[in-house]
C-alpha cells in the first residue's frame, strides 16, 4: 500500500502533461478514483493555448479565407450564371470564346511539354552531377519567379519586336514571333520554367545516385536506367510539377498580355479574353470564361492534394 501512495503524486504530475493517456491501467480501482477527479478538475491543458484564444485564432483564419478566397470564387460562379444556364453555355459557345480556349490549351500544351523536358534535364544535371556554376544554375532557375511577369513579356518584345534585337532579321524572313503563338508560348515557357525543375531537384537529391549505379552495374544502358529506374522514382514529383506548371501556363496574364497584341479570335487566351469582355460590359461572358479558369484551379488543388499524399508515401518507402 505504501508503494501506491508513493506512486500517486507522481502519476498526478504526469497527468498534467498527458491528460488523455490512461496511465493507471495497472493500478487498483480505488487509486483511480483518487486521481480521476483531479484530472477532470484540471481544465487547463498546459500543452496548448487556452480554449478562447484557440477559437479566436481559428475563427480569424476562417473569416479571412472566406472573405478573400471563398467569396470571390462564389461571385465568379454567381455572375456567370446570373442570366441562367443557357446564357452561360451560349457565352462559352461564342467563336471568340472557343478560339481563346483552343489557344490557351495549345500554349499550355507547348509550354508544359517543353518545360517537362527542360525541367527534368535541369533537375538531373543539378542533382546527379557536380560541375562548376551549379549554384548559378540553381539561382537562374528561380529567376522567372522573382521577375514580374510584365517584365518577362517585355524581354521578348525587346528581343523580337520590330525595333528589337532580332526584329529586322525576323521581318526580312517573314517570321512572326511577337503578337503570334510562338511569342506567347515563349513568354509562358519563361514564366513557368521553375515549376518542374523545382519539384524534382529536392526529390532527386534525396534519392541520390545509388539506384542508378546499381542499374548500370547490372548492365543497363543510360536510357534504360533513366526509363526503368530514375523516371519511376520521380514520377509523382514530376506530375506535381507538371500540374502546377499547367495551372500557371493556362492562367498566365501579365507576360502573355504584353506579347499577345490582343488580336481578336487569334491571340487572345482565356485570361486575356476575360479582361476584354469585362471591359466591354459583357459580364456573363466574361465570368463564364473566368468560371472555367476557377474550375481549373479547383481541380488543380484536388489533384495536388492527392499527389502530395503520394509523394509523402514515396518518401516513406525510401526510408531505411
Amino acid at each position, binding site marked *: 500500500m505504501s508503494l501506491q501512495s508513493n506512486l500517486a503524486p507522481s502519476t498526478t504530475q504526469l497527468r498534467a502533461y498527458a491528460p488523455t493517456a490512461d496511465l493507471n491501467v495497472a493500478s487498483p480501482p480505488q487509486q483511480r478514483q483518487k486521481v480521476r477527479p483531479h484530472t477532470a478538475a484540471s481544465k487547463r491543458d498546459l500543452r496548448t493555448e487556452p480554449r478562447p484564444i484557440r477559437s479566436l485564432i481559428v475563427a480569424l483564419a476562417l473569416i479571412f479565407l472566406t472573405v478573400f478566397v471563398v467569396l470571390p470564387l462564389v461571385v465568379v460562379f454567381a455572375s456567370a450564371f446570373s442570366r441562367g444556364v443557357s446564357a452561360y453555355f451560349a457565352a462559352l459557345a461564342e467563336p471568340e470564346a472557343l478560339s481563346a480556349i483552343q489557344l490557351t490549351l495549345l500554349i499550355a500544351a507547348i509550354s508544359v511539354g517543353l518545360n517537362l523536358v527542360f525541367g527534368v534535364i535541369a533537375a538531373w544535371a543539378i542533382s546527379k552531377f557536380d560541375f562548376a556554376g551549379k549554384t548559378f544554375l540553381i539561382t537562374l532557375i528561380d529567376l522567372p519567379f522573382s521577375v514580374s511577369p510584365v517584365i518577362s513579356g517585355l524581354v521578348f518584345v525587346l528581343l523580337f519586336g520590330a525595333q528589337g534585337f532580332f526584329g529586322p532579321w525576323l521581318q526580312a524572313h517573314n517570321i512572326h514571333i511577337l503578337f503570334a503563338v510562338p511569342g506567347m508560348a515563349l513568354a509562358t515557357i519563361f514564366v513557368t520554367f521553375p515549376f518542374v525543375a523545382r519539384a524534382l531537384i529536392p526529390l532527386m537529391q534525396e534519392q541520390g545516385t*545509388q*539506384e542508378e*549505379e*546499381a*542499374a*548500370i*552495374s*547490372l*548492365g*543497363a*544502358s543510360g536510357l*534504360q536506367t533513366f526509363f*526503368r*529506374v530514375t523516371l*519511376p*522514382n520521380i514520377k509523382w514529383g514530376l506530375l506535381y510539377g507538371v500540374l502546377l506548371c499547367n495551372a500557371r501556363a493556362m492562367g498566365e496574364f501579365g507576360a502573355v498580355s504584353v506579347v499577345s497584341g490582343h488580336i481578336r479570335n487569334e491571340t487572345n487566351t482565356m485570361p486575356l479574353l476575360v479582361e476584354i469582355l469585362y471591359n466591354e460590359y459583357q459580364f456573363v461572358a466574361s465570368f463564364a470564361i473566368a468560371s472555367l479558369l476557377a474550375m481549373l484551379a479547383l481541380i488543380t488543388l484536388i489533384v495536388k492534394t492527392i499527389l502530395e499524399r503520394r509523394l509523402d508515401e514515396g518518401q*516513406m*518507402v*525510401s*526510408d*531505411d
Partner: protein
Amino acid sequence: MTIEVRNIVKKFGDFAALDNVSLKVGDGELLALLGPSGSGKTTLLRIIAGLDWPEAGEVTIDGEDALGRGASERHVGFVFQHYALFRHMTVFENVAFGLRVQPRAIRKDEKAIRARVKDLLDLVQLDWLSDRYPSQLSGGQRQRIALARALAIEPRILLLDEPFGALDAKVRKELRQWLRSLHQEIHVTSIFVTHDQEEALEVANRVVVMDKGRIEQIGTPGEVYDNPATAFVHGFIGESIVLPVDVSDGAVRLGGRPLNIAANGAAPGASKLFVRRHDMQIGPAGGGSLEGAVRRVRSFGPIQRAEVTLADSEGKTVIEIDAPRDRELQAGEIISLEPRRYRIFAAHD
C-alpha cells in the same frame, strides 16, 4: 577470374584517396579490404566496379583492361552498403532487372528469366518474398536480395561494399557465415569492404589492411593478426597495449628502466612496444619486466580483464590486460608483467 590493380592513384581535390595502390586477387578468392573510414577501401572497390575512375594506374579483370570499359560492360556484381534496391519494383523484378536489360540478341525469354530468378531467390532462401517491395523487407532480407540481384547477371567477380554495415549485430553474424558458405558454393572471385576487423578475419581467405589510401599489409587472417607488418596494423587489428619505449644497444627501455626483452632487430631510437592484451604473462610482484597495481577487475566468459596502473609512471599509465580466470586477480594487488609476444615499431609509424 583474377583481378589485378596496379599503381592506382585517385584524388578528391587535394585529398589522395588512393596513393599508388597495387593488388592481385586470385581466382575464387574471398578477399577483405579492411580499414578505417577514409582509408580508400570503398574507392578502390568502386574503381574496380567502374563506378569511379582513377587518375593513374591500371585495372585488369582476367587479364583484360577494365578501365576502358564502363560499369555496364564489366560484368561485375556490385552489392551496395545501403542495398540500393529499386524501390518501385518487387523483389522478383529487382532480381530480374539485370536479365531484362540485356541486349535483345542475348536476352533470355520470359520463362527462362522466371526460372533463373526463382533459382536465385531459392539460393538466398527468400523465394517466399518475391512479390514484396523492398520497403517491406528487413535489413538482412534486403541485403540478401541485393546479393541475388547482383548474382543474376552471372558476374565474373562479386564486389560487396560494407555488406553488413547497416545491420544489427546478430543478423550480421548470421549473414557472415551465410556469405562464407555461399562463396564456397558458387566460388566466384569476391572482394568485400569492411571496417570491422572481426568480420574480415572471420569471413575472408585473405585480408588487405588499408590506411590513408595505402595498403599496409596483405595476408591471411592469421598472418595479419599474428605478424602485423606495421604499427597501424597492430593497433587496428585486435586489441593492443602500446607503450613508448626507447631502443639502444639492443636493449629496450621503458622510462629509462631496461625491460627483459630483446629488441629483435628494432632500429635504435624512440619506439613503440605493442603487446596483445592476452600476451602479458602475470607473475608475483618483483618477478618481471613491468610492475603495476591492479586497479579494477571485470570478469566475463573465460577471461578476466584487469586495469593495471604501471609503477614508475606516477599513476599515469594504465593498461588493460586479459588473463585466464585460473588465477583470480584482486583490486589493489601488486603484480609483475612480462610480454610473452610483442612487436617493436619505430615511434613515427
